[in-house]
């Protein structure tokens, strides 16, 4: 009897842990269950993204190789003809040039202004008042671009606008602003900068808050001046943030549309003027597709725009791997 008992499976109760273990699924099924839960959680977001982003993007690529109009679905395969037509248009190259000009000015301006404001907010303000100023700086970003752009149209009015009034105050000649081929795009840039600055300031503030205070204290005890501390300690330490801002700003500037549309008379069908001086790639895509109803050509332009942004981001990533310091 005793031997029989000894040979039986020991009935050990290890308490709650043991009970849980007995109830748990076999490892394989548990892994499947875990995966299903994961997919289930991702599914709603993935569905929205697929319907409103991936499918249109793939369809856009598809119609860029077809002759497509809003009345007849894409049936005539034309190969690269849309792209050939596109590259043969001087306006397309002009729009690319405008976009490049817009980006080349906007990126450094965004980075240095946003970083400067972030540093001022961080250094000069107490936590209590800092909150008010942070909100004030961020506020333009949460107001609709169209609404703020209308205000900027008034500011840049060459006859009674605030901009020329201020120039007049400092004895500078009045400018044509949105009516001038030379100053229209800079005027749009000022609006864009003002509107987007708050977002980048907040991002830089987050980056700056990650620089340990002790590092700045050690550097000051080491006898480093403020400018040297910034150049040698703060700037390298926030390089991942700067890289993020550069990538985000590059994408946003290449895609800039609403402010140009509103400020350059889009409501009257004349966006991108005067004399195409503010016709960026995104504006030309809109006009080609939705004003002149050349959807295939518009799609081809979008593909080119996508490839440009992809290439720029790739180049930025390649550069960042060499100069950005990740802790």
């Amino acid at each position: 009897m005793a031997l029989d008992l000894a040979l039986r499976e020991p009935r050990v109760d290890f308490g709650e842990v043991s009970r849980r273990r007995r109830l748990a699924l076999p490892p394989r099924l548990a892994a499947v269950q875990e995966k299903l839960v994961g997919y289930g959680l991702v599914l709603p977001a993935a569905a929205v993204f697929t319907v409103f982003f991936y499918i249109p993007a793939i369809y856009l690529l598809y119609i860029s190789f077809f002759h497509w109009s809003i009345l007849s679905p894409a049936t005539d395969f034309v190969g690269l003809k849309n792209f050939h037509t596109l590259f043969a248009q001087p306006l397309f190259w002009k729009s690319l040039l405008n976009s490049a000009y817009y980006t080349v000015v906007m990126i450094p301006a965004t980075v240095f202004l946003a970083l400067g404001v972030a540093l001022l907010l961080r250094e000069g303000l107490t936590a209590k008042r800092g909150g008010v100023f942070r909100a004030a700086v961020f506020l333009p970003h949460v107001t609709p671009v169209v609404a703020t752009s209308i205000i900027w149209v008034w500011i840049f009015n060459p006859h009674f606008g605030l901009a020329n009034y201020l120039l007049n105050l400092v004895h500078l000649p009045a400018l044509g602003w949105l009516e001038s081929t030379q100053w229209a795009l800079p005027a749009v840039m000022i609006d864009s900068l003002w509107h987007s600055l708050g977002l980048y300031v907040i991002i830089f503030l987050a980056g700056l808050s990650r620089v340990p205070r002790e590092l700045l204290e050690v550097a000051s005890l080491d006898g480093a001046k403020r400018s040297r501390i910034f150049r040698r300690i703060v700037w390298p330490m926030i390089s991942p943030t700067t890289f993020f801002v550069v990538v985000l700003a590059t994408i946003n500037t290449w895609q800039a549309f609403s402010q140009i549309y509103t400020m350059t008379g889009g409501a009257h069908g004349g966006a991108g003027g005067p004399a195409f001086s503010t016709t960026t790639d995104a504006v030309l895509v809109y006009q080609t597709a939705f004003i002149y109803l050349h959807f295939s050509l518009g799609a081809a332009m979008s593909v080119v725009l996508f490839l440009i942004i992809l290439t720029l981001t790739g180049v930025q990533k390649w550069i960042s791997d060499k100069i950005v310091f990740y802790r």
Partner: protein
Amino acid sequence: MAVLASIRLDGVSKSYGKDHDRAVADVDLSIAQGEFVVLLGPSGCGKTSTLRLIAGLEKPTAGSISFDGTVVNELPGSSRGVGMVFQNYALYPHMTVFENLAFGLRSRGVGKQETAARVAEVLELLELSELARRRPRELSGGQRQRVALGRALVGRPSVFLMDEPLSNLDANLREQMRIELGRLHGRLGITTVYVTHDQGEAMTLADRVVVMEGGRIRQVGTPKDIYNAPSDTFVARFIGSPGMNVLALPWRRDGEQVLCGESVSFPAEWLPMGGEAGRVVLGIRPEQLSLAEVSGNAHFSCRVDVVEQLGSHQQAHLVLAGGQDANRLVARLSGDAAVSAGDTLKLSASGGDLRFFDPDTGLSLAGEMWSAAAVPAGVGEMERG
């Protein structure tokens, strides 16, 4: 080698904001050239704030700080000739070990060749030469600590400030680094102010220990003085592991003896106050309680609550006999003493070991007989290893 500085704090206070209590309150302290002073106390006692005031990272709200007799209140830290080691090392993560050390010299305009020579010298001193090209993340905790030390040393400071520099290291490494720090100070002799909450570090490293609490200095003295003659009950309890037993008891004269309730008695001549009865606070270190009954000693009747066997010795947690004396105390007894929970013990202590404190203020009522001279020799040395 840099010129060593003496430091003097006169009535130094520091408040952060109008409504806040003073983090440092009326601190008076003199530190001699080449001295190793440890600021010791629990978290929030004001020791780090005091160090930051000396470093010039904070400005005092009141009082003055002098280096070699010159008031430096308005002088930035970089002009005070201090080298500082932070608790979390504060190494520049994007720079190599060499660059970390060279940064300060380059900031001060030291030439390339001299910078390279001085960095190499310090790297060699700290046995870091082979790690010169590594970045902090590629180093172990102990190596990072040494780089932080090196960075503070390379500027040839006249004062060396350390803010809990060993607290991020594991126990073994901490002990090793503690020995290295002691050796380094012995070799370089730089005036050092060292902040810690670890009394082991304080006792082993310091020439003098400054015990702080609530922003104020409670006692300044050699480790031996602090250990043997605490100025008040806070210091008595804080120093030592476990700290001094502090017992608040009623007393009355009974002939040649003083009886404290039913459980404690000692010769009346030890009492540092007059009268026939009253209240007193007694202090006795756990290792100074003995199982041997010696006539003419103080006696403590106790019940054993818990016994912790620690190999070389055992720690008995005791409750004073008699319902009214709910005071608890700890005794460090020899490892082979036959003691178990529930036993009743009669422990004794000699007059030189007993401390008296004012029951109202908690301040020491030290008389001649328990001055440092009467303290058993060797305690401090033993602790300092």
